[in-house]
């Protein structure tokens, strides 16, 4: 099982996480549903997590500093998701929509 991971080149990890990150980025930029936005942000974070884990292994870092970062990012991401979802619920209650393009009430027009 472990050997499968070792047989993969580092470049494969980079390609995969680049693809994941790009999907997340484009999702954030071009989708309007706030929930999907939040999911895309998670995707971007996880792409970075994957890269961190892969590079830790690749560099042979016995203290696993990169993987430590992964845990921090996960915690932050969980917190962010909780806050973000709470905001979305409140927005939905008030506007009956989860569409971010309507959230421009602070603009002076």
């Amino acid at each position, binding site marked *: 099982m472990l050997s499968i991971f070792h047989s993969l080149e580092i470049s494969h990890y980079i390609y995969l996480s680049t693809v994941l990150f790009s999907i997340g*980025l484009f999702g*954030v*930029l071009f989708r*309007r549903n706030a929930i999907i936005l939040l999911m895309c942000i998670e995707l971007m974070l996880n792409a970075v997590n994957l890269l961190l884990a892969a590079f830790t292994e690749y560099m042979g870092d016995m203290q696993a500093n990169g993987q430590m970062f992964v845990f921090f990012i996960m915690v932050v991401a969980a917190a962010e998701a909780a806050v973000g979802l709470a905001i979305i619920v409140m927005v939905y209650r008030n506007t009956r929509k989860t569409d*971010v*393009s309507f*959230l*421009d*009430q*602070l*603009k002076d*027009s």
Partner: protein
Amino acid sequence: MNPIALILLFPLLGFVLNGVVGHKLPKSIASGISTLIVLLSFITAAMQWSTVAADLNGSVNWDAYTFFNLDGILFKAAFSLDHLSIWMTLIITGVGTLIHLYSMSYMDHDNNTSKFFSYLNFFVFNMLLLVLGSNFLMMFFGWEGVGLCSYLLIGFWYQNESFGGAARKAFVMNRIGDLGLLLGMFLIIKNFGSLEYNVVLPAIAEGSSSTVLISSISILLFIGAMGKSAQIPLFTWLPDAMAGPTPVSALIHAATMVTAGIYLVIRCQVMYSLAPMAQELILWIGLATALLGALIGLRQNDIKKVLAYSTVSQLGFMFVALGVGAYTTALFHVTTHAFFKALLFLGAGSVIHGVHERQDISQMGGLKKMMPITYITFLIGTLAISGFPFLSGFFSKDEILANVFHHNIVAYIVLVIAALLTATYMFRLLFLTFFGEFRGTDYKLSDVHESNWKMTLPLIILAILSIAGGMLNLPHYLIHEDGFLASWLRPTFLIFEHSNHTEISTEIALISVAIFVFLFGFIYSRNRYVSKGINAETPTSGIGKVLSNKFYIDEIYNKLIVRPIEFFGDLLFALFDTLLLYSVTFSINPILKLVGRFNRKIQNGNIEYYLIYMVAAIAILLGLNLFFA
């Protein structure tokens, strides 16, 4: 506690109390506190009399605070109670107490009584600062402070626009004089390295400084005195200052503040004694002012305006005394003038009150039956100022005349004419107000009422002082030694003051002239306004018209000074504001609008756009990093 601190802090306390909580207290309590507090100040000062008298070199001191130290020059809040300042302090607080008491009744109907009394207390505080300060700095503090209070009180009834204008006029004219005073102080710092009286004045007394320097300092300080004491050319504010409530005219614009200039010159006696040129200037300016004020006073119909011009004229008399080096005489006249002019103003206030806020004497007449106390006290004041033998004004004016007689015979003749006019206009005022037929058209004689005791008591006390004030400095020919004030003031002066002991024959001649002057004024006015029954005139032609229009001096100032300045201002406005500034700012305006229109599109409040900007910016930064790393 230091007695000087007490003297100063009482009125300050009254100012703060009345200013902060006065409007919540009943009127009588608020004004009562403020009156009592000035009285306390008077008592504290009076209790120091024997201490000051025993100590010839000056005195009770109080070094309160050092503001800052500039290259070894100390700027201190220091005070001293010496022979000169205790004299002034007693006049200020003594007359001040009476006028406060008077105001309690006079301002009773006003809605802002506590404001009035807090200003009045603040004035007393500043005036005390002026006379008690032992350096030019404190004197200047007080000098500006009384100017401020004068402004506030002239404009006390600020809803009337012309009253506000009068207040501004007083302030601006005083500022012109203050500039001279400031320049004089700068010269003193530059050349003597200090502002303390007891450093600067002895240094001047040594006589090693050049006459030019002493003369310039003296003249600059005198310019300050001109503004404050209403001398030609800066006197026109004082008649306008009558817009203020009458007690203010009595306290500030007759008895105390306007004599600050005379105090300043007396304080710097040593300087003026060494600057004959400055003395000569003071003499002639004082003479011109005395004559001009008396002439205008002849044909004014406003009861307060007559007294205002009379004040201008009497201040001229005091400066004449200073100009001939008779400093004691000047202070003597300050004192007697404080008594009788305060009395006359308060009497005028009582009349104004009695006839329901009217001031035109052509609408009065025959008031003596209805206002007996006011009439008798006003009569005493008139007699005192006109020089009725053995009243206070007789002695002080006679002393000035005698001193001028020995100095310059031309000046003496002019001054006698001014004294003659003084008697004439004062009796004109007295006769038109209290004698003859009642001439009121829009009210009845039976409406006129005498004022209550709070107003008549100060009148009676001041009348007694006006009668007996001459005792303070009896002339040599009566008591064969120096008068009380003369020997009292001697330790203050660093240079011995010459006193003219005239021969008895000359003295008799001078007194005869003085009595003739009094009689002429009395008989002329009596003949004209009582026997012939002529009403207060408003001449439409000839010299009378010039007089009643105050020599057109305001108009001349307007044409010569105000108009050119306005024109210059308009010119600058057209050139710089309209042409330069407006064109520049209005041409920048569209550019800013354009930039704004573009920027507003970027910041459209939509989160998607912000995200795109963010990602684009990161991409650009990363790209740049790739290229240049």
